[in-house]
């Protein structure tokens, strides 16, 4: 609105709107899931891990926004930790970007005694990130 009450500081001039909205845009490197594929031959384990040949554990990386809220399924504690870090004690770490959910992986391996085992392991592939 153009008119301002007498003596009030003038509002941000309209041409600076893009600057004004910049503070609400998602930060460039926000906390999110990143893909990473490895083959067991890189670890030289393909002699005893028969399957799968490739494995994508994925990982979480990026900055946690100050006002996390429900977007990451973060508890209120995350915001409290941020306030402590900013206002009270910078030695308390900022919230970190970590996996929130995983999926299992089936592995076929040769045991030291020569027997063969098919096993389904829990929590082997990160599927979702959160700030904690």
């Amino acid at each position: 609105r153009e008119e301002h009450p007498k003596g009030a500081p003038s509002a941000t001039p309209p041409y600076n709107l893009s600057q004004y909205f910049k503070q609400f845009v998602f930060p460039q490197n926000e906390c999110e899931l990143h893909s990473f594929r490895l083959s067991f031959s890189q670890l030289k384990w393909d002699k005893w891990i028969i399957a799968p040949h490739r494995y994508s554990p994925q990982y979480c990386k990026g900055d946690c926004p100050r006002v996390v809220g429900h977007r990451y399924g973060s508890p209120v504690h995350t915001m409290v930790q941020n306030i402590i870090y900013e206002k009270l004690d910078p030695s308390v770490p900022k919230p970190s970007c970590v996996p929130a959910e995983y999926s299992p992986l089936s592995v076929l391996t040769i045991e030291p005694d020569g027997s063969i085992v098919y096993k389904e392991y829990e929590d082997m592939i990160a599927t979702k990130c959160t700030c904690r």
Partner: protein
Amino acid sequence: SPHSRAHPSSAKTSGFLGAPKGTASDLNPLLQLPRSVRGGYALLPPLLKVLSDRGQQSWASESPRLQPDSRALRYMKRLYKMSATKEGIPKANKSHLYNTVRLFTPCLECEHPPRDLRKGDVHSVDLLFNLDRVTALEHLLKSVLLYSFDTSIPVSSSIRCLCRLAVKEQGSSSQVCPSLSHSPAFSLHFEARKRRWLEMDVTSFLQPLIATHRRNIHMALNFTCLLGDPQHSTKLVTPLNTALVPPSLLLYLNDTSEQAHHRWNSLGHRRTNPAWPRPGDSPRLDPTGDQGHEDSQGKRASRRR
């Protein structure tokens, strides 16, 4: 953690990820795992070793392993393809109950000379299986003796066999090849031509032994096989014992430990299979796809359990 910061001496033994400065037992993360987990996890020991040998290339050279039988390897690769996707994700739509399958090849087998062939072909063998890799948290769902045919030898099409299976008591294992003692018989009828594998369900037979965590199972098997339908000639074109390869022992298990994937966890609201057999239960479930249905009451109860 603050505690370890306050007492730098305890930092020395704070898990395998820290730069180990302690005695050999601290160096080896495996020794920090509970015994029940240590032996059975194919993946954990090498992962822990990699993380404790930080920066040294030595972790790449795994300790040498005995090489498995190629036929057994082919069977397990086929089972893997049926149970998981190419990326290794367990197939949720498979209603199989097992999350672990172990295949053991016999570490000792004694052939007995075939007796008179007039009664058809008698194939006798003693087998010793070492089950050290089965952990205390792995409960048996089903066990199968897996015969594969040496397909290079032409075996007539339809074969009817009577198989007798005897388990040798612990004491008699001192004899390398004790004589056969008779026991319940299994009758099998199969079309050799169509089958590359012959599975003989021995669950009820081995359940008590595996439930008591028997480490070595010594069993004696003898087959009497007849050609085609019993009314006609009984002689086999080719003696079976040249076509039958000594069997492997297949154990379908439910691993109840934290690290293992539990299907009912991921099935969530969808149809939940009947409750897991407890160690005392003899598994009536077929882990490769039981058709058990539960009413809603049962479902709630089994989920609560």
